[in-house]
């Protein structure tokens, strides 16, 4: 479990992140979503014990940052923004080297290397030099490197960057299985679709956390869910506005051409009642479709509300 309270990082006069507070539970995938320079990488670097926070505190599986940074590094696995592999070494040699740095030796090391080469489907290329690998192949080896020592806490910076759709799905599925093993996982991403599919909760950040919520909760932030009702008949949609305004579950309504755009508190529950009320009022309904807000709308709304940052950390 990761507990973060008021974390802040200054680089001389530049404040990269400030007032960061959140928790990541065991078996939870927490997404950090934000534009370039939002401070995602800085946050992960602090939590992984790579750089010291200027202020605030955090514990990682009970180990306080600062006092037990070595212990934190030993139980953390990190997929860095850039794979950062050793080009002249083979995939196997790269993994074996990192396994040693995490304290694996002998048959435990060999077994872990072979297992994770298999997990990322790179066994056939194990003894080839990394220099000849594609971006996707490098990313797979970097993922294997982050997981080799069975870390309790995992930080993944753009985990599917450079992967083809099939490989990206393999990685996402594997990350999901890590959740079932009780690992705490932090995923930094720009990929909204990935964040929505993978994460239990998402923190949208720009220098600090702007909002933390489930993907569904975040979507609601953008705008209220709406239902589009297509009408066909002599009466125009404007003639139903008064009737709809009387309905308690309708929070807003607009009419355009032959369409009514109705805001509902809970479309899944309220749509049948809405249609019944319209038909009862004489409307000829030809189509009803939910127009759910997207995570992208919510994200752009949140990030846009908090203005531009000119940092790139």
């Amino acid at each position: 479990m990761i507990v973060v309270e008021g974390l802040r990082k200054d680089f001389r006069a530049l404040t990269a992140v400030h007032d960061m507070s959140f928790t990541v539970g065991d078996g939870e995938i927490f997404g950090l979503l934000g534009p370039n320079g939002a401070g995602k990488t800085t946050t992960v670097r602090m939590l992984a014990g790579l750089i010291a926070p200027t202020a605030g505190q955090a514990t990682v599986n009970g180990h306080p940052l600062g006092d037990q940074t070595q212990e934190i590094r030993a139980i953390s696995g990190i997929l860095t923004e850039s794979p950062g592999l050793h080009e002249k070494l083979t995939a196997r040699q790269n993994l074996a080297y990192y396994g040693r740095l995490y304290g694996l030796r002998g048959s435990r090391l060999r077994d872990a290397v072979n297992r994770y080469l298999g997990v990322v489907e790179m066994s056939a290329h194990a003894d080839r030099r990394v220099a000849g690998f594609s971006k996707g192949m490098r990313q797979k080896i970097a993922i294997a490197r982050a997981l080799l020592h069975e870390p309790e806490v995992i930080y993944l910076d753009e985990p599917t960057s450079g992967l083809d759709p099939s490989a990206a799905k393999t990685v996402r599925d594997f990350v999901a299985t890590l959740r079932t093993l009780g690992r705490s996982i932090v995923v930094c991403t720009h990929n909204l679709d990935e964040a929505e599919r993978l994460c239990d909760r998402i923190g949208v950040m720009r220098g600090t956390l702007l909002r933390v919520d489930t993907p569904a909760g975040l979507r609601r932030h953008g705008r209220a869910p709406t239902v589009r009702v297509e009408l066909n008949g002599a009466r125009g949609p404007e003639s139903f506005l008064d009737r709809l305004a009387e309905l308690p579950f309708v929070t807003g309504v607009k009419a355009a051409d032959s369409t009514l755009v109705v805001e509902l508190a809970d479309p899944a529950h309220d749509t049948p009642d809405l249609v019944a009320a319209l038909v009862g009022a004489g409307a000829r309904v030809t189509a009803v479709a939910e127009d759910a807000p997207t995570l992208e709308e919510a994200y752009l709304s949140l990030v846009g509300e908090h203005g531009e940052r000119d940092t790139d950390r």
Partner: protein
Amino acid sequence: MRLGYAWAVFGKEWRDLLSNRLLLGAVAFPALIFAAIPTGLVAWIQVHNLDPNQLGQIQQYIANFPNVPAKLAAQGFIVTNFMAYFLLIPAMVPMAIATQSVIGEKVARSLEPQLATPLEVPELLAGKTLAAALPAVTATWLVFVGYGLVNGAIADERLTRFVFSDVWLVAMATLVPLICLFSVLLGIVVSSRVSDPRTAQQIGGFVVLPIIAVAIAQFFGGQATFTMQQVLIGDLLVAGLIGLALLIGAWAFDRESILTRLA
């Protein structure tokens, strides 16, 4: 310092070095050149049965080798005088390896994943230092032994004794590893602040200037080779410089500044 971790870094660096033919060439080439030039001169004197009286300026240095024939004294002077340049091998070679290693990792961004492990910075540097110093020390020692044996075989076995003198055995055992260590540390300090291997090597290249200056001063001073006292003073001087480089290195190569200064 946990030796297992430093050893793991050393192993990785060593594999990296062995797969880098260009860098291996940079290790071997200067060592062979510094040995080949005087050996060629000795062979030339031997083959042409040269009269030392024709050697002009060298005559004044022949007095360093009393009780031996003039031709052997001339060869002895050439063999021993050039040995000062052997100190350039531990100065130049590890510098090239260390700068390539650190800057190569900065450019490849492979330092961050290493620093994210429980590996401590001193363990990382110890592994890198050993990997950069070992080829240079080994190359210097091999060339030293080969140089003594080959010159003895070409001309006169007494040349071997001139090479394997007490002074040079002590210099090889102490001064060469110390210069190597200083060169590596300087390479690491410089590399932590710049992002281009050539710039690092040019800045670090100043380390060879004092050695060249000593070699030239020795020649014009009429001295065939170093004295034991000079070697020991050299040891102390370089040891002091290593202490200074360690202090600067600890400041320059801290985990955070490496990550935030990445190219």
